[in-house]
């Protein structure tokens, strides 16, 4: 066998193996599609392929008020993304491009919070929000994002910022720019790849979040504030929305929820995959 023929065989084998593996991972989503497009009458006696196809799952989802849930979730996600982007880059700048006494100690504490188990504080956090009158509002979901935006994000942006040459900042300083101007006009625009990564990751987290809304919104029963995951959960328990117990409605909602996420992952794949090592590549 010639070298090129051998190479072609290896490549074909690679495609076949990868396709089989991909098909395996596609299985749950494939079943979601089958279930979502099953007509109402056949959802509880499933065959592998629907006996009768139908879009009533999607129709019932829209009739059941999914649009309001989407709007709510978009508002919460939008504000959280804004807060995370602004405050994580500010803090990262403070940990990389300027110096102050005790900087490394403060940074060490920030990173150490990554290791703390959430369970040690979650319930106390709840009672703290309760005392502040925040339960039943979006404040517990949004406000913490404005205070640092998460240790992982600060860490990743800081790594990336370290790759921005100090000479650029020095030059601006000599031209009379203050620290904030240097951050806003010079460093931040140069960090857009990692900021994009942080924003996309934050969106995916908000869009699918169940535990946060379940803890902070559910008890108040203020339905007009429910986000997607919580709304779906509450509707499936509510006799008034009996259709939401149907697998075709549930899977239709699932597919609708996944759509923007899949698009984002496909489009931003490069920055999503390389985001975690972006800093070290540049450095």
């Amino acid at each position: 066998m010639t070298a090129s023929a051998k190479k072609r065989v290896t490549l074909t084998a690679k495609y076949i193996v990868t396709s089989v593996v991909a098909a395996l991972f596609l299985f749950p989503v494939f079943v979601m599609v089958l279930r979502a497009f099953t007509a109402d009458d056949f959802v509880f006696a499933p065959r592998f392929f629907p006996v009768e196809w139908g879009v009533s799952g999607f129709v019932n989802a829209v009739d059941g008020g999914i649009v309001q849930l989407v709007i709510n979730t978009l508002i919460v996600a939008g504000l959280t993304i804004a807060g995370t982007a602004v405050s994580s880059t500010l803090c990262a700048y403070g940990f990389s491009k300027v110096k102050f006494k005790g900087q490394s100690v403060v940074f060490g504490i920030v990173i150490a919070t990554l290791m703390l188990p959430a369970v040690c504080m979650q319930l106390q956090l709840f009672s703290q929000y309760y005392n502040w009158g925040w339960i039943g509002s979006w404040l517990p979901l949004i406000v913490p994002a404005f205070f640092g935006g998460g240790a992982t994000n600060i860490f990743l942006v800081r790594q990336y910022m370290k790759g921005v040459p100090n000479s650029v900042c020095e030059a601006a300083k000599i031209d009379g720019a203050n620290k904030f101007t240097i951050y806003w006009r010079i460093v931040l625009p140069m960090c857009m790849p990692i900021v994009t990564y942080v924003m996309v990751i934050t969106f995916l987290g908000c869009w699918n979040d169940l535990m946060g809304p379940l803890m902070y919104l559910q008890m108040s029963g203020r339905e007009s504030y429910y986000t997607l995951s919580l709304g779906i959960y509450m509707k499936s328990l509510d006799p008034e929305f009996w259709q939401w117990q149907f697998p075709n409605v549930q899977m239709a909602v699932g597919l609708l929820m996944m759509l923007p996420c899949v698009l984002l992952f496909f489009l931003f794949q490069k920055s999503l995959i390389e985001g975690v090592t972006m800093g070290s590549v540049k450095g």
Partner: protein
Amino acid sequence: MALNAKERRKFKVADNLTSFLFVVPCVLGIILFTLMPMVSSLYYSFTEYNTMVSSSPQAFVGLDNYVAVFTTEWAKAGHALKVTVLYSLVTIPLYMVLGFMLALPLAREFKGVRVFRTLIYLPVLIPMIISGYLWNDLTQSYGHINQILETIGVGKYAFFNSEDTAMLSFVLMGLFTLGGNMVLWIAQIKAIPNAMFEAAEIEGAKYRTVLFRIIIPMCTPMIFYNLVLSVVNSLQTYASAIVVRTHLNADALDFYVGQVYSKIVEMGNLGMGSAMSWILFVIIAVIAGITFKFNKWVYYEEDV
């Protein structure tokens, strides 16, 4: 420009202060949303505090709660701890190795690689709430998986509907979210300088040599990072389990954090619940500490 000593000191203080201003958001955030709840939880763990009796601790009891977890409460707490630790011991290495094997062929660019990565990542994007409904539906006796098993002649499997099979089913279900792990590995493999692979090719190195002499050693920082975070997360498994937990598998999927929540939310026993959460904290801290202690095998480039 000559500044006298006093002016220079004043300038230095102002410079320190304006620099510090940038990190004020996260410092405040840690105080408000991490430190304050943690301190009160630590204090409550030394008290008798039932939220159904009154809205403040009833009595200071010292270490009583901690002692109780290992004596009167041990039957339940110990069982949950055993389930959680066994689950972690099995899944941390399993998911790491399989995630690496998935990433290996997909780290190189080739035609269609973006589509393959997206397809494998797809199950990670299924919202948790939907994933609960989906896996319940998939694994029922009439569900799609049992239909396949029947057709190929294996016969029906109980999955989440039995104490004996629920844990294995839970581990298998987790396999479908390996895409998240894969993405981390791809990132690390892609960050390896191409020059290394070129040098290996010129030297005529076999693939096995490249794998064990270049790829794996260069990935050790990611292995380490992954290991520490997996320990922290895996011992706190909760949300992914409650969506598939029913009365048919309550014992098998009895994770420790679930016990903590039921102590506090269902029984209002904030004192005992807090003590249990701090015991978990100590366990995690000890394991993470050991991991840090034995990190000689991690290859570090010069810190940037």
